[in-house]
């Protein structure tokens, strides 16, 4: 695409390149202004100019620096998520017509892909003169968060990825962002772009780092704004470290934020603005809810003043049209991403209760009990209201009579730093079941509750579900 907007590097400069602006992970600090007279790509921008470039890294910090350098230079940049199955790479290379690979991986990993131009990237910026004059409005190709089958690639631009980003409130000092998300997926990339274009810095999580240790580093770095999924937060809130941390802004997105996790987060950070946001790779950032309540006001539907985002509900799922949605799927055989009116179907089932819309679950994730449909998330929301519950996962258990019944795995809060005694566990289970019976019709009440120490969380920070 011909260039019409400033490149990421240019907008970084516009926001100011003060020496304190940095990206951090683990013990590493990358000072952004070093890129004014240096490169982490060996200065090889001419090799990438006008080309379709695959960014496939082990290290997310290396990917972040590469993105700053490549936007406006490459015709297309394809950002691989950390868990991309290498078996899919030949398909990705062919579909995205890759002409160059930017990587920190061993050469053996990429040599067989048939792409001649391989540019090494890393965390270290080496001094040298670089021509950063942008000539292209780069296409940004991201992968959807689905985990099975051939990956889906969606086409964004820097404009759709960062359009109409609202400032997150007035702060006296510099904004320091932190995100549990990986910046190589939509949710994390959002935060990287916000930090870079908004004049801030960003703390990234290190591979395998626990939420507790990430929170400790966030406190040490003076983080003011922090984002993650409800699953990230439920795990982080179990750690005592979180009580010493006091951000100005804490946000949930990527999964349904139920009332329990919102309340818990607000109670833990009494001085923070706690928000939950709706965003997806395809639909972009649609809205943020700041009134402390789950769901969103019915007034959000339809055209609204001050935003080009239009929400509607059709066939029970939320549809979104805005300048922040992706443009299309990549690949000749792909289905259209937008309907005839330009709306993205999020696949998220919503339900109106009173003056508010609530998320009930994913269209594909329904449990069918003898013909009655249940969204696991609506049962989890009830279970999570129990003060002793930290996380829960509701699944379908195969059953010869009704096809399936509802089963629940629950993580209970510790008693101080010790596990609960067996009698307390049994009484917690009975209380949870009682609460479910009061709040839900019989077929939605878990037939069995199992107490577990931990629940699976996917690399993208979402509760590990095996979707139906």
């Amino acid at each position, binding site marked *: 695409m011909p260039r019409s907007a400033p490149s990421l590097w240019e907008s970084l400069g516009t926001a100011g390149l003060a020496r304190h602006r940095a990206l951090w992970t683990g013990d590493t600090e990358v000072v952004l202004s070093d890129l004014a007279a240096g490169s982490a790509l060996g200065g090889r921008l001419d090799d990438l100019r006008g080309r379709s470039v695959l960014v496939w890294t082990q290290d997310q910090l290396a990917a972040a620096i590469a993105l700053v350098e490549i936007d406006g230079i490459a015709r297309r940049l394809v950002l691989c998520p950390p868990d991309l199955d290498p078996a899919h790479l030949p398909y990705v290379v062919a579909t995205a017509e890759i002409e160059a690979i930017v990587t920190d991986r061993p050469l053996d990993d990429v040599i067989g892909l048939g792409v001649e131009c391989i540019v090494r990237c890393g965390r270290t910026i080496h001094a040298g003169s670089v021509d950063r004059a942008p000539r292209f409005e780069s296409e940004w190709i991201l992968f959807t968060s689905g985990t099975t089958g051939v990956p889906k690639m969606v086409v964004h631009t820097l404009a759709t990825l960062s359009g109409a980003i609202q400032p997150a409130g007035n702060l006296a000092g510099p904004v320091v962002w932190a995100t549990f998300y990986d910046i190589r997926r939509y949710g994390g990339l959002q935060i990287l772009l916000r930090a870079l274009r908004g004049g801030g810095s960003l703390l990234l999580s290190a591979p395998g780092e626990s939420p507790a240790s990430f929170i400790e580093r966030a406190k040490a770095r003076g983080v003011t704004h922090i984002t993650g999924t409800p699953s990230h937060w439920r795990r982080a809130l179990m750690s005592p470290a979180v009580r010493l941390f006091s951000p100005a802004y804490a946000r949930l997105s990527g999964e349904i934020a139920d009332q329990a996790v919102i309340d818990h987060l607000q109670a833990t950070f009494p001085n923070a603005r706690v928000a939950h946001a709706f965003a997806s790779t395809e639909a972009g950032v649609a809205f943020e809810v700041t009134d402390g309540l789950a769901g969103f006001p019915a007034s959000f539907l339809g055209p609204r003043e001050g935003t080009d985002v239009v929400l509607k509900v059709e066939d029970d799922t939320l549809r979104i049209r805005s300048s922040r949605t992706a443009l299309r799927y990549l690949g000749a055989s792909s289905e259209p991403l937008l309907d005839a009116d330009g709306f993205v179907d999020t696949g998220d089932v919503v339900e109106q209760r009173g003056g508010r819309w609530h998320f009930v679950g994913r269209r594909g994730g329904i449990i069918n*009990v*003898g013909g009655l449909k249940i969204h696991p998330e609506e049962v989890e929301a009830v279970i999570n209201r129990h003060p002793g519950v930290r996380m829960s996962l509701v699944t379908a*258990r195969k*059953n010869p*009579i*009704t096809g399936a*019944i509802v089963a629940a795995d629950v993580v209970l809060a510790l008693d101080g730093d010790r596990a609960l005694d067996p009698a307390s566990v049994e009484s917690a289970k009975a209380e949870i079941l009682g609460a479910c019976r009061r709040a839900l019709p*019989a*077929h939605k009440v878990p037939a*069995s509750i199992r107490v577990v120490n931990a629940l699976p969380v996917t690399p993208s920070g979402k509760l590990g579900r095996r979707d139906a």
Partner: protein
Amino acid sequence: MVATVRHTIISQFEQVAAEQRHKLASLTDDRPLMESGLDSLAFAIVVARLEDALGIDPFSASDDNQFPVTFGDFIQMYEKMYVNAA
């Protein structure tokens, strides 16, 4: 051993009926299952709990068991599989 199976089944029927607020009929061997007082959801839960307690699920077993008609059939089906599994 087999007596344990009968005992386990009866106590599961009673427990699930109580949880689901169903009025359980007296569980004689000639009682048709349809008249036991449990609906299909409660019945499904009983079968799942019995799988947890006894480690068997005769309904999902591959051999073509006749679907039990009476409470006695039901117990027999479990007893038979329990003995075979032991």
